[in-house]
């Protein structure tokens, strides 16, 4: 019986039979369909996934001519940052790292970001970030984003001035927790708009809201309101990358333009992001470390295909460590990454990654 080398969601290698591989692909797409209330991928698409995973070669790629645009969330930092950002600690500056990604590595777009990759800590040093952006823009050709996370949690005590919902809710103080989240969301929106306007002044091509809604529905609302303001009043092209596959209901009653935010999956998230005025949406589908990469990729492309089918703006799926079917491990294996990459384009029908 033929067996296939298979990465698990935590990166370790196992071997599966052809029957097992097909069963994993079917189970993955059915899990996404059940959770999201969306169609499974077709039998033909499942066969294509089988071929990708059964192919014995180390790496795979999309059919020539189907290449897509690459955007990122601080990828230049992987050259000079430390382990926590998967960085390799090479002593190059941010400007040098960006030049390397443009001229040596063939990137289509690039992003400048601060080491403390959230809007709140950027605000007091934004002039430093502006001059770095200006320096980068002088010498680069590809579009340059400024990127940071809304990161609403940094506004709660002890790091910020507002009540901490994670402290309040276990005490049964639900109303107080909700009030604290909305107060924090207001401050978060103001900071994002402030930094966005400064980056527009510096000439940035775009702004990337990365890991959006990491603290739940109130953070998603804060981001949507910032997008509204910046897309209406600046030239910035706005990209929104999500934190997880569905929006956590930390507040539970937050809505935007009549749509309750808690529990939304990517195919509904994208419609709100479009309404707010963003140019690119980056859906996230979380990796289950106990399941195979085939299961995870089948599940991820099912969510992303449903999102892509309803979208009117470009979709750049997140396919990094622990998302989009990629294993959750410090050195992502290229066999799994390239399979997730190709599947996201050819089945997920994305416009970029």
């Amino acid at each position: 019986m033929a067996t296939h080398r298979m990465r698990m969601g935590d990166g370790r290698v196992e071997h599966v039979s052809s029957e097992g591989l097909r069963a994993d692909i079917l189970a993955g797409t059915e899990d996404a369909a059940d959770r999201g209330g969306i169609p499974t991928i077709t039998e033909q698409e499942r066969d294509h996934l089988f071929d990708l995973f059964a192919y014995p070669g180390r790496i795979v790629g999309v059919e020539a001519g189907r290449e897509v645009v690459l955007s990122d969330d601080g990828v230049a930092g992987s050259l000079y940052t430390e382990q926590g950002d998967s960085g390799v600690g090479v002593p190059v500056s941010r400007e040098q790292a960006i030049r390397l990604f443009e001229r040596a590595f063939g990137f289509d777009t690039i992003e400048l970001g601060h080491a403390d990759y959230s809007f709140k800590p950027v605000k007091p040093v934004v002039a430093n970030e502006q001059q770095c952006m200006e320096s980068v823009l002088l010498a680069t050709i590809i579009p340059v984003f400024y990127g940071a996370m809304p990161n609403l949690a940094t506004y709660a005590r002890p790091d910020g001035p507002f009540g901490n919902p994670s402290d309040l809710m276990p005490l049964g103080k639900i109303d107080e927790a909700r009030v604290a989240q909305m107060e924090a969301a207001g401050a978060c929106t103001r900071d994002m708009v402030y930094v966005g306007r400064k980056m527009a002044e510096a000439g940035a091509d775009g702004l990337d809201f990365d890991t959006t809604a990491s603290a739940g529905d109130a953070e998603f609302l804060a981001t949507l309101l910032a997008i509204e303001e910046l897309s209406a009043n600046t030239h910035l092209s706005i990209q929104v990358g999500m934190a997880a596959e569905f929006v956590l209901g930390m507040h539970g009653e937050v809505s935007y333009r009549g749509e309750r935010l808690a529990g939304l999956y990517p195919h509904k998230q994208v419609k709100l992001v479009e309404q707010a005025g963003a140019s690119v949406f980056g859906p996230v589908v979380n990796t289950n470390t106990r399941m195979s990469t085939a299961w995870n990729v089948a599940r991820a492309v099912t969510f992303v295909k449903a999102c892509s089918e309803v979208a009117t703006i470009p979709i750049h799926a997140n396919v990094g460590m622990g998302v989009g079917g990629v294993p959750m491990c410090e050195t992502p294996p290229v066999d799994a990454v390239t399979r997730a990459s190709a599947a996201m384009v050819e089945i997920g029908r994305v416009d970029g990654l």
Partner: protein
Amino acid sequence: MGVGDPVGMPMAHVLASGMGGIRTAGDLVARMQLHRKMRIPEAKAFVAEKLGVGVADLSDEVLMREVREDLDIGVVTAMPGAARGLAAKARIARLLGIEIASVEILRRKLEGD
């Protein structure tokens, strides 16, 4: 994209699915996605028409190297005299019929606004 070490993440995606940046026409297609919210088929068709090439040619490194040099919109190799940085972007803005913010800032500085 996402987090990962340079070989395991960005390099893997570049080789598997990426357009190739200024090695090809990746930056130009990206600009149409960002500036006009075009999805990939529309963005590729728009850029191909502007460059006078076929859609499938946009990610052909050999052909696009010549096209970019002929149009002087920036080439990946370090060629003396070729447009770089803002100069290349100014030419790209004119070619694609878009406004690029950093180019507009330079233009305003030159015009004394």
